[in-house]
């Protein structure tokens, strides 16, 4: 068939397709298209066939370009990835995040070791030796740290005039600082995983040194109640961010039977789920740290809340998402469902 008759015979279908496309692209402004949207996939596939025919038969370049343009505009409407925000978030928290964490348990264990071993060793060492902390921080930083948790000073996490709005300022600071650090711990994993390893170890050393040094000085009764509330969420979240970074590093160093790029892509999907979950945990930690850790509750209550926090976190990781409710997507964070 020559071009003229071909165009004439298909003109009506193309016009239908065009009007549906206009309705789809301007969705919201004109909610009532003349034609049922259910016809769109059929019209689209027919148009694809027309485009392929036009190319194979070497019709005029202008016609081919026009058909290509129509196909290109329709494609994202048929193959859009669905984003049902709230369902996605719920499925993610209830199943996607803990399941991914269990699937990557070995990397998480490695990250935990890289973080908690230096923390414990440095903590014990600084508890024994009062000079050791100066190998990590200079004297000004140590002095500031000591003044923060001095039993004779104010409560940590609050200024001298304690007010609720200072709590909120600290909340903003914790959100910006801590979640930012978590994200960087992850991103640095792209440097062959070394960045994440370094950040995990150095954070472990710093936190351990702080805890050991302050306990040695007898500031423990101020320090431990303050950190016990948000510790469970913050420390595990740092470890998880590090594990996500290690996943990226592993893809580059030991891609297995995939190319490095393919391995990176496969691992990045899980890593994004882990980082997303860790970010939510850090948000929770920021709320606890700003509004609970700084409050004047008794030390015993704060310790109890801390223990409860650890139990809750461990139970969540171990149990959540074990039983499939039937409808929930296995990987809640990816949202790869195809549909019009």
């Amino acid at each position, binding site marked *: 068939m020559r071009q003229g008759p071909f165009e004439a015979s298909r003109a009506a279908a193309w016009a239908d397709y065009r009007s549906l496309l206009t309705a789809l692209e301007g969705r919201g402004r004109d909610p009532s298209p003349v034609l049922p949207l259910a016809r769109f996939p059929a019209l689209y*596939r027919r148009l694809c066939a027309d485009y392929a025919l036009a190319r194979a038969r070497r019709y005029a370049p202008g016609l081919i370009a026009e058909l290509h343009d129509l196909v290109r505009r329709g494609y*994202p409407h048929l193959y859009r990835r669905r984003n049902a925000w709230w369902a996605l978030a719920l499925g993610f928290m209830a199943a996607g995040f803990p399941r991914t964490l269990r699937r990557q348990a070995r990397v998480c264990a490695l990250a935990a070791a890289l973080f908690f071993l230096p923390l414990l060793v440095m903590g014990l060492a600084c508890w024994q030796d009062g000079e050791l902390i100066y190998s990590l921080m200079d004297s000004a930083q140590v002095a500031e740290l000591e003044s923060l948790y001095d039993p004779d000073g104010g409560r940590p996490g609050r200024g001298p005039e304690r007010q609720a709005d200072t709590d909120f*300022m600290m909340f903003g600071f914790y959100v910006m600082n801590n979640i930012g650090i978590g994200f960087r711990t992850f991103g640095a994993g792209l440097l062959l995983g070394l960045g994440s390893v370094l950040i995990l170890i150095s954070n472990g050393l710093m936190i351990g040194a702080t805890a050991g040094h302050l306990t040695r000085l007898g500031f423990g009764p101020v320090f431990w109640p303050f950190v016990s509330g948000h510790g469970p969420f913050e420390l595990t979240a740092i470890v998880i961010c590090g594990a996500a970074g290690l996943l990226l590093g592993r893809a580059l160093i030991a891609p297995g039977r995939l190319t490095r790029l393919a391995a990176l892509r496969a691992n*990045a999907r899980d890593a994004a*789920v882990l980082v997303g979950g860790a970010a939510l945990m850090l948000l929770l930690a920021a709320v606890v740290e700003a509004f609970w850790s700084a409050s004047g509750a008794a030390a015993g209550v704060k310790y109890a809340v801390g223990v409860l926090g650890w139990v809750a976190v461990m139970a969540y990781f171990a149990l959540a998402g074990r039983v499939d409710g039937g409808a929930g997507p296995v990987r809640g964070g990816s949202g790869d469902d195809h549909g019009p």
Partner: protein
Amino acid sequence: MPLDTIRLNETPEGVDLGLRVAGPAPRALALAADGAIRLVILLALSPLSALSGLGLGLNLIAVFLLEWLYPVTFEVLYGATPGKRAMGLLVVHDDGTPVGLSASLIRNLLRVVDFFPLFYGVGLVCTLVDRDFRRLGDLAAGTLVVHAQRRSTGARAGRTHAGGTPAPPGLPIATQQAILAFCERARRLSGARRIELAETLLAHLPSPATGPARARGWAAVEQVEGYGTWLASGRAGD
């Protein structure tokens, strides 16, 4: 290896869709525009600091949201940040579908590494090395930054009618397409250019053994357009 920046990817229907990937220059400009927008938002929020602790906290949260979630939100909802939109760019998966939440999250969190050591040094080198101008974040997320294409007007010049002059038999496909392309675009060309192109086209056709000498000037244009009409319409059932 093709020298243009059009990447073909095959859709499930078996047709090739062209994506025009965007190079470092428009992307850097888009980045600068986004930076300016974020700065303006932060400056607009700065009076909040007058509320002491509460306002300062809000400001810090705004810094966090602008740094990490501004690109993700705009990319997932609208396909591009305002800066990219201004440059006519679009973020898509490498199969051409609109970018989703997880891919957008990955490519934007890995911004940290692309920024290293200063002002997107790694990102720039990476976009220059990769043939699709992807930075590390794009590689990991499987995304492309493409030019959002202009829509064709839909009204092609030189619509075909029945009739025309039978073209010499055995024309190569490439020549036939050149003739058809000429007919479509002729209205938009100046007279002198039309004549020049038509004469060049005729010079490439096998000369008729018994016919008159090659047409010159406007006669050449008419002759080529006649061939084009004939090629496009032809006879029914052909």
